[in-house]
């Protein structure tokens, strides 16, 4: 077995995994805030809609959601299945799914801020937007960091689900090598890569948490 070639291909796969990871965070972190704000909206329709979406996204397998996003347009609109859309479907599926989880984390964080903070801001004359971005958000970020770290670590591992849409990410590569040569080594190597990836992610998040420890 050519280990050099295997490692090279695994790293190529890893670059897909990293790409899925980054794009998903890029879209789902802000999208989650939007969903959280809808979920806490005074408008019942918007609130119930957000609630329903979160419930479905959290209550069904991500793998199934990925299939729906990819094959849905083909069955409904007869849209041709291209490789560009294959990758796009993965990003859409992951982003929407993770946004639902982040939305609930944000909501819990926002609701944990004492009412007195809003009242003090109001008396001092801050506008609602100023209050939200200057006073509420920084405190929410600190509170939600541990659960967000959890989700981010899960996401690293979840990127392997992209294999269901035959994206050549690291897990798919490892599986192919493994079944073609009946050996566990590629899978173990992939496992090591996932672990290192997550180790770095956790370290980064911990640093950020420490940085925010300047206040309680």
């Amino acid at each position, binding site marked *: 077995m050519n280990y050099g070639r295997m490692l090279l291909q695994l790293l190529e796969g890893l670059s897909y995994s990293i790409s899925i990871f980054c794009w998903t965070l890029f879209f789902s972190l802000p999208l989650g805030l939007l969903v959280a704000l809808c979920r806490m909206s005074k408008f019942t329709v918007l609130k119930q809609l957000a609630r329903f979406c979160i419930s479905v996204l959290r209550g069904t397998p991500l793998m199934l959601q990925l299939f729906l996003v990819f094959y849905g347009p083909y069955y409904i609109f007869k849209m041709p299945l291209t490789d560009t859309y294959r990758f796009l479907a993965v990003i859409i599926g992951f982003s929407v799914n993770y946004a639902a989880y982040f939305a609930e984390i944000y909501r819990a964080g926002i609701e944990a801020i004492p009412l*007195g903070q809003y009242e*003090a801001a109001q*008396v001092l*004359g801050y506008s609602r937007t*100023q209050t939200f971005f200057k006073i509420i958000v920084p*405190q929410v970020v600190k509170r939600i960091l541990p659960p967000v770290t959890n989700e981010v670590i899960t996401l690293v591992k979840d990127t392997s689900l992209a294999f269901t849409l035959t994206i050549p990410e690291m897990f798919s590569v490892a599986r192919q090598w493994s079944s073609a040569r009946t050996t566990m080594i590629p899978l173990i190597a992939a496992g090591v890569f996932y672990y290192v990836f997550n180790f770095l992610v956790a370290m980064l998040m911990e640093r950020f948490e420490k940085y925010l420890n300047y*206040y309680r």
Partner: protein
Amino acid sequence: MTQLNLNKAPVLHIEHLSKSFDNLTVLKDISLDVHQGEVVSIIGPSGSGKSTLLRCCTLLETMTSGMLAFGDTIVCQSAARDTKQYASPETLRLVRQKFGLVFQNFNLFPHWSVMKNIIDAPISVQKRDKNEVIHDAELLLQKMGLADRGDYYPFQLSGGQQQRVSIARALINNPEILFFDEPTSALDPELTGEILKVIRDLAAEHMTMVIVTHEIEFARNVSDRVIFMAEGVIVEQGPANDVILHPTQERTRTFLANMRNK
């Protein structure tokens, strides 16, 4: 005692103020004037509506009917029974600069230093000159005995120190009137003294103040006038010594007796 200038519009003017939550009436037909330099304490059992009255005055709560004015600025008025008309948001924004509020739980912003807590609103809301605000804040911190605490974060301070910061924050825009909502209730007994001293010093400088408190002796010492509230109405009011030492109403006597026996 302060000489009242009755020709000038009162700093705070409340007329026939009522407030209900759903079907529960918590304030019934309250009328009250506070004049320049006057210190008014509001005492009464919990649920008497004294905190709600303070919250209506500071626009944290909207009244159901009645009139509220700060000096010449009308905040809210009633044309007819059970109606109200609040001033424009622009007026309300300006009126918020006329008063300060000190909360029971301080409500400092924990992610900001002491200095930032005091100076941020004047700079980013009232758009005052930054250097001038910092200068004022340093003087205020000095006055509060916290000159060396500007760079500290609220969690590094004792409850009494945090409350003094929040008083400085309430004073930074030179309000015409300062409201206190049970300023010592969240403090350990040995820390209440330092807050009462600060309020006493402010009284000596003729700061106009309305203080909701459970500290009866303090109310008697510091106030020009004491108001006793129960069940949403003003039961009795008058010079501090009269109301607390020689109450005329049975309800007031019962309350004061209960407070003494604690």
